[in-house]
């Protein structure tokens, strides 16, 4: 029988998906505080999974010329330039003759770029205002008290600077809407608790794409099917590490048993807080969150939305029982209305 938390709440997904004696749940912990933005993950993933090309345009989004997770980019390294202090470092541009920061303005320009990613709908352009804010941070909106005078407000010349980098990937949610809405059973839960598209099954109905609260899964042009990170299901099956995690030079991408990764992550946050990086926080680690916790979670140094992540995603299927109820009610209303209409007086 389905678990009480089958649609929402903490859950061990593999047993719920019918695996008896499932191995421990495996996942990724991506620690962006050590990411060097080298993109080895992007390439290693493409090499292993034979993922096609995803566009050759200069996007102007700092060093990000990939743009987003798509069917043709299963790892995506985000780059954010911000005139704000990096917790561990002394101000980058102390006493240099600078004017105000340009990153909000360049982010705005970059919001307009696009490229043919070989996927549908590709890389849509963005909202310039929201782009500017990502780089400026709230203090650029005249919010009071963000920083002591002379630091980062931009009016008197930039001093602080940090360059955020983050390798994004499918979250392998505990409650994976993409999987649950898939009408063919192409998307399925593996024994490792990961979420995988079975390419021999997918018929390209596209439902999973709308269902994903993270905008991860995507449809490939000229192929029609949906594609995303498989957490290297084939490699896991023979005891290997996923290609991206194996390649990652600085262990920003860590692969392992989810339970253990969560402990490691909590310790890392504590360390960073001790070392003067109070902005370090975890994202997607909590089994009580809106998706039951992610199988791939992150240590971030800014708000999730700055990295293109939804700040508080909730799996859509949480509300599915209520939806069915409303649909049932509507159906009955419809039947009743018809009956009434016909049972009325004959002319």
């Amino acid at each position, binding site marked *: 029988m389905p678990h009480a938390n089958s649609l929402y709440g903490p859950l061990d997904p593999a047993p719920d998906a019918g695996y008896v004696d499932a191995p421990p749940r495996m996942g990724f912990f991506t620690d962006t505080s050590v990411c060097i933005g080298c993109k080895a993950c992007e390439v290693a993933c493409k090499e292993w999974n034979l993922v096609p090309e995803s566009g050759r345009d200069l996007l102007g*989004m700092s060093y990000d010329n990939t743009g987003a997770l798509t069917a043709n980019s299963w790892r995506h390294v985000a780059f954010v330039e911000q005139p704000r202090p990096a917790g561990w470092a002394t101000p980058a541009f102390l006493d240099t003759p600078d004017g105000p920061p340009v990153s909000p303005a360049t982010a705005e320009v970059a919001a307009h770029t696009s490229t043919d990613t070989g996927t549908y709908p590709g890389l849509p352009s963005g909202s310039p205002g929201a*782009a500017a804010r990502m780089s400026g941070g709230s203090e*650029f909106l005249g919010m009071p008290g963000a920083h002591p005078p002379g630091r980062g407000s931009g009016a008197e010349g930039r001093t602080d600077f940090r360059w955020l980098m983050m390798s994004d990937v499918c979250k392998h949610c505990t409650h994976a809407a993409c999987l649950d809405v898939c009408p063919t059973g192409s998307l399925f839960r593996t024994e490792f608790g990961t979420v995988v598209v079975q390419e021999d099954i997918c018929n390209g109905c596209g439902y999973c794409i709308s269902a994903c609260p993270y905008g991860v899964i995507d449809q490939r042009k000229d192929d029609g099917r949906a594609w995303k990170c498989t957490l290297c299901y084939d490699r896991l099956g023979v005891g290997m590490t996923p290609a991206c995690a194996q390649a990652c030079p600085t262990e920003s991408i860590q692969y392992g048993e989810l339970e253990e990764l969560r402990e490691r992550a909590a310790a890392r946050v*504590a360390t960073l807080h001790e070392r003067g990086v109070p902005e370090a926080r975890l994202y997607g680690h909590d089994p009580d969150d809106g998706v039951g916790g992610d199988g791939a979670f992150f240590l971030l140094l*800014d708000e999730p939305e700055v990295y293109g992540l939804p700040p508080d995603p909730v799996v859509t299927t949480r509300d599915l029982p209520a*939806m069915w109820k409303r649909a049932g009610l509507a*159906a009955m209303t419809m039947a009743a209305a*018809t009956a009434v209409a016909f049972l009325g007086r*004959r002319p």
Partner: protein
Amino acid sequence: MTDTTRPDRQRQAGRGRGHGGEQLTVPPADFSSYYGRPVLKPPVWKHDIAGYLFTGGLAAGSALIGAGAQLTGRPGLRTVSRWTALGGVAASTYLLVHDLGRPARFHHMLRVAKLTSPMSVGTWILAAFGPMAGVAAVAELAPLLPQHGALGLARRLAPPVGDIAGLAAAATAPALATYTGVLLADTAVPSWHDAYPSLPFVFAGSALAAASGVGLIAAPAAETAPLRRLAVAAATIELVGGRRMERLGVTGEPYAHGRSGRLVRAGRALLAVGTVAALVNRRSRILSAISGAALVASSVATRFGVFEAGRVSARDPKYTVLPQRERLDQHGPTAGR
């Protein structure tokens, strides 16, 4: 996220837009994002699916009307409705298959039966409804068969079989008409998901309106009285059920503004026109046809409007980030509740 601190965030919703970085050329949005790009992937469904929302609803409504006509002895309306139901379901099947990235694999839909997947549920509903609607419609051909021989037997058997099939189709029809509301709502698309209490009602009403409209156009005038009543009921269901869509807050915007908003509003206006025309007219064939056409058009506009609104809401990060941010600021992370 109890171990999370956020000292760097100074957001105070709705306040303070005064001073910006000097180089900002547009007023800063009140939320952050990654280069303003959408957080979500906009639905990849083409207009096939908006079309299907209409044709599926039309088929369902027609099957219901067909059954009503069958049970109340309105053969003309019955015939029209049964053929409309078949046409609707055939068009639906075509549109659904056509929208697939891999149409040749449409039968993979029948691999599994998943209650968590409205599309899977819908597939099985369609699988039940379609053949029944087909049999019911084909049974209407009985008079064309010869009187004698094997086909003569068929001619005699067809009407009762058609009646059973018609009733069976009608039994599944309300599900067919309303599941599509869940189909759209069970997504991360903000305007669709947030409208989940309304969508089944809107779609139910819209289905009845469209089916009534076709009946008004094509059925003998003498048999259309229930359709006029039904049109009123449809309008009531749709308008009452849909009124909450406007109160969604920011994710309701696409239903009120832009192209999608215009379509939704046009749908309502047409619905009103069609319903009123149906009510006032009792005899005019032309007015009936106009009324019917308005109802059909209303349904089309509503379906495309709702469909488009979802796309708009997924395309702009505002609709994803702002409500989630607001939720976080008011209640803390979802986990905390």
